[in-house]
């Protein structure tokens, strides 16, 4: 990898990046900062016992969700795995509903029923947040199928991890995508590890993971995730291919997570050297690099950047307060959101017994 101050190729000059106004660039930077601050707040309150279950932090990977989703048009859709906070904020979900979800509150985006792994905002094209590794990949394919079926010029970005590529459902999805010419872009967020297993201990491959696309006669590309301009430039090509030609693409974005697999992962300094982690933070951090870049471009000043940072911190702190003060679900809440028909009290819902509590 080269550092972003002298990138091998200058993706800032790609048309899709040239088209970015200074305001949009600042928005993109702000989004990356907000994701990080949101998650740092989440970490703090997870450790304070305010949440249950798992917490999979996205910190280090922010350029992927924010960069790709910054390309969204009105008919584009998104779906990912359990490491979903970055995508959620990038589609425009607010910190309150996300933090409240992790706190398990009624005001959470999923009413406290889904938790950290299951954020949803269908109104913003975001379909989760899924916990079964690669289980979301046929769904992403299906969203794109639906777009094509309904004659919309959109695509679905479907994210998965480097460990997820070895699940059968993903392979089936690749073949179907290519065979049926479905406007889906699969994005492997390659952070080098699936839990404690390095990429080379989980996958056999030639060159890179994305190259497996060739077996399905599908286009593919590899992207340096530390450069959000590159993320945008290359993902844009894939999205246009999907929207205009109904052709799928498999993208692999090289990135890194700074924390463990989840906060329960106490081993993460064992399977990775401290030097490796430090190197990423120092030399490849997508936020720092973009900050420097925008300052060099004259789009941003240190002061504005600091202010953005501070605002994000305050927003995150406020979301914690919101979450903390929100009401928890009741026992009655356990039994809703199971069937559409019963939730909507339709005639069908009144025939036969739907629930079997003794």
């Amino acid at each position, binding site marked *: 990898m080269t550092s972003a101050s002298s990138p091998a190729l200058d993706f800032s000059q790609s048309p899709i990046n040239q088209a970015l106004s200074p305001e949009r660039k600042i928005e993109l930077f702000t989004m990356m900062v907000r994701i990080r601050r949101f998650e740092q707040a989440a970490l703090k309150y997870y450790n304070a016992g305010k949440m249950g279950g798992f917490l999979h932090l996205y910190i280090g990977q922010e350029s992927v969700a924010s960069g790709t989703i910054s390309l969204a048009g009105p008919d584009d859709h998104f779906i990912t795995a359990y490491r979903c906070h970055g995508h959620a904020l990038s589609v425009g979900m607010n910190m309150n509903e996300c933090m409240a979800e992790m706190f398990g509150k009624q005001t959470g985006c999923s009413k406290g029923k889904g938790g950290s792994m299951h954020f949803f905002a269908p109104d913003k094209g975001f379909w989760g947040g899924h916990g079964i590794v690669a289980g979301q990949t*046929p769904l992403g394919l299906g969203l794109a199928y639906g777009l094509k079926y309904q004659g919309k010029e959109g695509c679905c970005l479907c994210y998965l991890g480097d460990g997820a590529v070895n699940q059968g459902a993903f392979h089936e999805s690749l073949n179907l995508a290519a065979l049926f010419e479905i406007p889906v872009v699969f994005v492997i967020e390659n952070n080098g590890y699936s839990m404690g297993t390095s990429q080379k201990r989980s996958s056999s491959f030639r060159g890179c993971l994305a190259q497996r696309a060739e077996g399905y006669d599908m286009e593919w590309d590899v992207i340096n995730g530390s450069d959000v301009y590159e993320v945008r430039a290359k993902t844009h090509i894939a999205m246009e291919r999907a929207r205009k030609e109904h052709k799928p693409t498999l993208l692999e974005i090289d990135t890194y997570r700074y924390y463990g697999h989840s906060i329960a992962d106490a081993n993460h300094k064992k399977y990775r050297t401290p030097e490796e982690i430090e190197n990423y933070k120092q030399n490849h951090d997508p936020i720092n690099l973009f900050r420097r870049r925008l300052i060099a471009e004259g789009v941003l000043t240190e002061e504005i950047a600091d202010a953005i940072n501070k605002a994000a911190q305050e927003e995150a702190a406020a979301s914690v307060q919101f979450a903390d003060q929100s009401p928890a679900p009741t026992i009655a809440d356990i039994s809703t959101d199971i069937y559409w*028909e019963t939730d909507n009290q339709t005639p069908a819902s009144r025939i*036969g017994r739907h629930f079997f509590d003794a």
Partner: protein
Amino acid sequence: MSRILTYREALREGLDEELARDPNVVLMGEEVAQYNGAYKVTEGLWKKWGDKRVVDTPISEAGFIGMGIGASMLGVRPVMELMFWSFHSVAFDQLVNNAACVRYMSGGLCHCPIVVRGPANGGTNVGATHCHVPEGLFAAFPGLKVCAPATPADAKGLIKAAIRDNDPVYVMENTLLYGTSGEVPDPADGDFVIPLGLADLKREGSDISLIAHGRSVLHALEAANILQSQHGINAEVLDLRSIRPLDVDAILKTVKKTNRVVLVDESKPFGGVSAMVGTLIMEQAFDDLDAPVQRVCSIDAPAIYSPHIENEQLPNPRRIVEKVLSMA
């Protein structure tokens, strides 16, 4: 006015009517289009409706069922055929996690109006991996609905209800019923839909209740005839039709009437629909029972191939009659 149709024709008519009614309905599955369906349920529909509405898929059940689930979240209404319901095993995650839980995990934001249909039965000598009858297995997952029609009319009425339902509905058909015939109301007389969750009293009786679903209903009816003519026992036959939602009222009503019950269920005896119905009856009608509820299930082994013996592994009229007589 009604006509005599086969179960297969009735299903096809139901599918055809729903394709006509709602442009979001799309049939998918292995060999459903150009080949006309492995069991010819979809015969002629590809020719009539074309590539967009009737889609052949590769042998990728997890992939195409997951695809249907994803598309359904956007408003498409996929009706997906499993060539055998037994092939659920390779799509299980999509069927019980994505379809059943996505509404819940999203706090009600997503919904999943899919239908998965196909035959689920033993009796055709295709061996252990091809004979699963997973009604009870799927009904155990809140978020899913399951039905298992026994007659042509029920098949048509239920497939149409399933397609219109806004939740995932798994329709269990039967290869041995596809060729059976029965009266089905004429479409000219109006839209014919049978709601999920409504059992059907297929035979009135006073001495004992035989409760069944799917092909076991036909066995129960045959057994009831034998019991009447040879043993003077007047058996009532209740066809559950739908497993979830389940018509508990109808079950309790027949129990209160006859006070004796035999459940007939092609499932294996550990679990299955019958263990659940048995438990329900005990929980809610214990004092109405003159004798413990008895069950006739498949003999507790993987499905045997041999055509000389497979029918003896399954519930059949003889086994039902014997069970009823043993309760006297």
